[in-house]
């Protein structure tokens, strides 16, 4: 299972990002979301969504083996074991592996909680095989 996004349906509202941070960190803070939104305005006027495909490349390079599989079959970061080395960041083909030391003392990524799908009013996000 993984998260899918249809950028053409995205209206750029970032509700997904608030919901994500809330589930991941129990904090409201869209800058701590594990999916990304890149607006391209004023031209051509489209949103581009970036979501985790659960490819596992991040887990493969993690020297502390902090990136593990959860019960949903998704890779997640065990915050206690992450040493902020950033080895995972350049491996991510979608740019949704995050390390921002000023915001959190561990790397973070999508753990497939599904809350982003719940709040998306335009059905731009869904979970499937």
């Amino acid at each position, binding site marked *: 299972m993984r998260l899918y996004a249809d950028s*053409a*349906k995205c*209206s*750029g*509202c*970032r*509700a997904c990002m*608030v*919901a994500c*941070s*809330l*589930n991941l*960190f*129990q*904090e*409201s*803070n*869209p*800058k*701590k979301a594990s999916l990304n939104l*890149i*607006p391209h*305005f*004023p*031209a*051509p*006027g*489209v*949103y581009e969504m970036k979501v985790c495909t659960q490819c596992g490349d991040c887990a493969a390079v993690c020297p502390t083996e902090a990136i593990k599989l959860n019960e949903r079959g998704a890779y997640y970061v065990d915050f206690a074991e992450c040493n902020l080395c950033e080895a995972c960041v350049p491996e991510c083909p979608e740019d949704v592996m995050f390390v921002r030391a*000023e*915001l959190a003392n561990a790397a973070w990524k999508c753990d497939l909680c599904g*809350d982003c799908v*719940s*709040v*998306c*009013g*335009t059905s731009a996000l869904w979970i499937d095989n």
Partner: protein
Amino acid sequence: MNGYGGTILRVNLTDGKITKEPTPAQLARDFIGGRGFGIYFLFKEVPKHVDALGPENKLIISTGPLSGMLAPGGGKCDWTTKSPLTGGYADASMGGHFTAEMKYAGLDTIILEGISPKPVYLFIDNDKIQLLDAAAFWGKGAIDVEVELKHKYGEEYQVAAIGPGGENQVLYACINHDYGRQAGRGGVGAVMGSKKVKAIVLHGTKSVVVADPENYHKAGLALYKACKDAEGLAEWSRYGTTVVTSWCNEVGALPTRNFSAGSFEGIDQINGQAMRKEIVITDKGCFGCPSPCGKYSNMKRYNTQVEGPEYETIGLMGSNLGIADIQVVGEANRLADDMGIDSISAGSCIAWAMECYEKGILTKADTDGLELKFGNADAVFTLIKKIGHREGKLGELLALGVNRASQQVGQGSEKFAIHVKGMEQSAYATHNATAMLLAYMTCDVGAHHNRSWAITYDLQVGREKVVPEKVARIIWLQNFRPMFDVMGSCRLQWVELGIDRDLYVPLLEAITGVKRTWQDLEAVGNRIWTLTRMYWLRENDGFDRQWDLPSPRFYTEPPKTGATAGQITKFEDVQRLLDMYYEQRGWDSHGLPTPATLDTLNLTALVA
């Protein structure tokens, strides 16, 4: 403080001093946020009778507890000031992503004071706050400035900017953000321009602490679920505010040729369907919105893009100018945005000038040679730019708003200047819709629809009826609807999707830790409403019921065509509406809140 950024930021532009103070807990308790904070600071801190474009006026930008949170439409912030257009109270609600960024920078309110000696922009990156030189941006269009600032700082930064209209203090200049969202009405952009602030750049990465995280999560998801389950979601999201265009035309509420009628023969070329088919390229939502009304459009003929046009702009810059072409309306919208002038007021001013021209009151000598007939798209484009730059005789005249312009020109043109208290009426023709007419007459910024939108209610109960129940409905809406502006969220999930408003009660409580029912919230709404009224009285000697009268067009000139042909509201009914309204509000026959009413609302000390 739970649910708040916790800080009031004060920026004195005269001496460049930047100070912070904690958001007072009592202020949050009594006024909650948004426009509640706005009127509180305006009333308390801005001295009586100041020049709205002088150093003593302030521009107050406030978020609310739902701003930036897991709350559908929590993307609203409020810009409050003394209006240069009306001389009274003004607040403009702006969507987009600015308010969330402000909250995540830890700010509840930004107060701009004084006048900068040179053009500047305010740069806020969490706790790093600076006034920076804006010489390179001064004179540029609002869209270009946003592009440049976003390029300089990155996509995570949010920008609000004025265009030439704000710099030149066009009295209805607006503030632009997110390539198409505006703090639109009342001249808030002129106030920003008078202070020589070209833009505000914001970036915030702080988390917002809430009182009860578990119930916050639960209540937030419940509201989103209700929105997603709503029957009207698909239709609303497809058309946004333009969904009402054809309906307004059918019921005679679509402003047509300067509100001389309420139905337009070119409706099929400017309605939501035409727009969706011809120009829309994507939906565009404000922060946290599950039901995006924003439509982003590409006008192929001009090779330009705009967010919009909204229904209001279609009304005022389409049918009201006799324009039956959605691409023209879109391009006029874009020009107004780039100039940084309110498309509602600008459309109304141009419509008035067109009527003057067709009646021979204005000639080519007055219009710098423009053939200012209804339907002339090129004249509209030229005039929008002239207004923004205050260029030429007509650009200068129309920059003053339709009230002042008509007083200067005279010759009976005052009678078809469509405004209340100096603010141009938004896009609902009210020849025979008495609740909506009263809503415009008594709205606390002038003739604006967002406080109480009652045109469907008029049709439901009988549009010409003048009964106490109708008046009670308007008062209820005026107390209730602006509470969304106080909480920092959008009202359209309630209005358009029919979401149960009680779903907001547990959310607000979980965020702030303060339990408030809608009855409590409406009481706060009533208090704020009355305080804004007191601001009008304080600023305008001799303020009385004359100020609440609508444009004479609605009680003297029945439309010749359309759904409301031959229909009109009698002047005695206009007066009866006011009598009933004042009585129900606890105001005297001049429209002044009585001492007993002020006392009941616990406002006596504040207004003393």
